[in-house]
């Protein structure tokens, strides 16, 4: 055997697993066919955050600074420069991963991989043998029939993040979180965006209804148009532009644009690597079946991250990466996290943990709930970002926190406290009695806990 552990895929699941495995004294190699850091660092989380940060800056300079008495003349966008800055952010992070792997004595092999049997993997012309394999090959954008990605007219999220030129008009097929994040920042940068959403609500109804309602208003406020119950049927070129034909509420309608972005979800890369050839079992959606130790049905093959099931989130992959490396090293570990925080970088941001109100109702739980608006928070007012609220759901009898839902400024940073609360089994009182510093956005958590208990100070 060449290695104790061979990790396939150097995304946020794979590289983390490899580092921990090596830290535990296992001889480890990681195989990557593209860039270190995977989708997350190169064509996902990180570059999109760079673009969102730039768009926010642009929007505030243009639309919000004058109210503060700051007059900025001629705010203009240099798209190629923005793109290269965004690329530099990704490159910096990917370079960091490279150093971390090196520093932790993890070998890196570049190339496409394919299993020959459950103990050996062909990479390029070479065959690697290992006692254990951790498959962390992630997912890719789902293809919509008739809208195959050419990354020129029909873009995937990868292509949209890499635009050299800002499109004047963009049709986005799919009002999920990826589509909305990109729509929001492109709209802020100056693109006219129309979103075609097949259902009658955004984010596939995964958020608490109160959040979805406010999100729909906020999206409209920045100028993004959303067509609900709209099914994209076909597209054709019309000069330098494209025309999308869609069935909206039963009627055929045409949408003219420069480009089309399709974000209807992501699909696990389980059809690659020859996984089915070596007998690895998958479910109907193509996710590899794993147990709580991330073991597949094939001894010695572990699966983590997007390929191992929902939710397809980088932080879940990293958590699984650490625990899998420890399982292989002989520690008794299982996936027993109570919640995976979800974060959506729309404007305003959305973040949540635990159950939402419609789930609490469906389960017939005896719960209490309360909300606290950012409008009543001094820091939010001074940031000019008062849209949004924190909402909590707790067990009526014990006050144990069951769910926290935030829409508003820095929701993504605020949610970690809620995640800790859920993991610790904290009560509303625990949050309310923790002194939160003033003046911060974090005070809204304390106030919301008080509101849920029925006695918030800063709201009637």
């Amino acid at each position: 055997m060449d290695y104790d552990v061979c990790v396939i895929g150097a995304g946020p699941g794979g590289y983390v697993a490899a580092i921990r495995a090596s830290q535990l004294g296992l001889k480890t190699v990681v195989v990557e066919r593209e860039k270190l850091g995977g989708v997350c660092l190169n064509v996902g989380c990180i570059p999109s955050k760079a673009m969102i940060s730039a768009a926010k800056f642009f929007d505030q300079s243009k639309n919000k600074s004058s109210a503060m008495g700051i007059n900025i003349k001629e705010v203009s966008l240099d798209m190629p420069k923005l793109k290269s800055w965004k690329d530099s952010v990704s490159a910096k992070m990917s370079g960091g991963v490279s150093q971390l792997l090196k520093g932790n004595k993890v070998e890196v092999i570049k190339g496409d991989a394919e299993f020959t049997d459950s103990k050996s993997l062909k990479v390029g012309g070479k065959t690697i043998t290992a006692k254990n394999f951790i498959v962390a090959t992630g997912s890719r954008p789902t293809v919509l029939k008739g809208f195959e990605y050419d990354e020129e007219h029909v873009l995937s999220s990868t292509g949209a993040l890499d635009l050299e030129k800002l499109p004047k008009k963009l049709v986005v097929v799919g009002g999920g979180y990826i589509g909305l994040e990109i729509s929001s920042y492109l709209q802020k940068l100056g693109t006219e965006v129309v979103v075609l959403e097949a259902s009658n609500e955004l984010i596939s109804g995964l958020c608490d209804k109160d959040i979805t309602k406010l999100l729909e208003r906020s999206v409209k406020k920045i100028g993004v148009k959303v067509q609900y119950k709209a099914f994209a049927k076909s597209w054709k070129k019309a000069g330098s532009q494209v025309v999308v034909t869609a069935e909206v509420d039963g009627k055929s309608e045409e949408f003219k644009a420069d480009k089309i972005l399709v974000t209807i979800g992501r699909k696990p890369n389980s059809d690659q690597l020859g996984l089915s050839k070596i007998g690895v079992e998958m479910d109907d959606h193509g996710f590899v079946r794993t147990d709580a130790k991330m073991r597949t049905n094939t001894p010695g093959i572990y699966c983590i991250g997007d390929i191992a099931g929902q939710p397809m989130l980088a932080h879940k992959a990293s958590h699984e990466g650490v625990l899998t490396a420890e399982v292989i090293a002989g520690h008794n570990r299982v996936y027993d996290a109570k919640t995976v925080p979800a974060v959506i970088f729309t404007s305003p941001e959305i973040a949540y943990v635990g159950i939402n109100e419609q789930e609490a109702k469906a389960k017939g739980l005896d719960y209490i709930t309360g909300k606290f608006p950012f409008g009543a928070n001094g820091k939010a007012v001074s940031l000019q970002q008062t849209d949004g609220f924190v909402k909590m759901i707790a067990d009526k009898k014990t006050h144990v926190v069951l769910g926290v839902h935030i829409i508003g400024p820095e929701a993504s940073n605020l949610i970690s406290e809620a995640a800790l609360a859920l993991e610790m089994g904290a009560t509303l009182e625990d949050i309310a009695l923790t002194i939160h510093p003033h003046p911060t956005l974090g005070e809204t958590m304390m106030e919301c806990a008080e509101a849920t208990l029925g006695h918030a100070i800063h709201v009637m």
Partner: protein
Amino acid sequence: MSTVELKLPDIGEGVTEGEMVSWLVKVGDQVEADQPVAEVMTDKATVEVPAPDAGTISKLVAKEGDMIPVGQVMLKMELGAETSGVAESKTEPEAKPAAKSAAPAAKTVNTSSGITPPVAKSDVLASPSTRRLAREMDVDINTVSGSGLAGRVTRDDLVGSSPSASSRPSSTQTKSVETFVPRAFTSLEDERVPLKGIRKKIAENMQMAKRIVPHFTLMDEANVTELVKMRSQAKEVGLRYGIKVTYLPFVMKALIATVREFPMFNASIDDDAAEIVYKKNFNIGFAADTPNGLMVPVIKNADQKSILEISAEITDLSNRARESKLKVEEMKGATITITNIGSVGGTYATPIINHPEVAIVGMYKMVKKPIFDDATEKFKTAHMMNYTVTADHRLIDGAVAANFLRSMFAKIENPAELLVGMI
């Protein structure tokens, strides 16, 4: 058929929790109202908890070894009709595999098969590190009844519930060095037993006393020949009342008379207030050896009781201490303690003070010895008995303790002196 829950009742002043020692019933048992169903140990007393009503035991919620707060459910029982001990129907719905793809909490994997201990259910209240500790201790956290708020499983709950010392992963095993081994010896595994109950309480108290109190012990020998005579007469009197009169009440009386002269022995130090508290009551604790360990029942207001009354009380308290039936109140409030290890053996010991008291008097085995009589220049036979006084040096100096012992000996060696001063 209705279910009633038995909650740990309020078992004594200041008692907030008790340790579940043992169940006296099992699931399916028919019990009558007030029939004892469990033994719970608090502070130092073991109490029997009675069934609230007649019926059938349906579930034992608390586990042996658990610490149970007052008011926590210990067991569930069905009133009246029989249930033949069938496990109660599970009301909680099975966790459905996440219906709508990305519900964050639920993973769409079969998490149970081949994993020991099983994965914590989503409704188990325990912090991530506690869940990990349970796993490493090989404890199924789903079965641990948490002592914390809303049934939260704490670290302490786990430390008391490990079925065995956990086998550590291979990384901690050291490689054995190849050496010449002439002959194989059998090494037996050490037995590990949780430190709990009265033993744990004793351990805590002793450790605290030794940590706080600078002890010193003074030892001397008393001629108790006269006391022996007096006690043998008193014994006869006692028999008429059916009361066993031992030496202990006499020593108590001598001790009380001496303490009146040396009030710093019937005192305590209030560390927080930096004050000396002089006790105005004379509540004498006496150490009693029981199958469960050392217990210290208290004769309250011993100064106001006769030798006979004290004797009767000593017999009663000692008997109940051995049967673990003392009430918590009966072991509280001592102002000074006597330990009578002489009935077992040993010439001298260095006892540990029962904190926050400041002194403990030890009495040891009585022996007949030849004593040189200065008056007659001859040896004569005497009953001799060793005594020690152990004191808290923060409050009591060596010379004071020596004077104290001398004064006490004057009363023990000459009971007439004791008698004339007795109230």
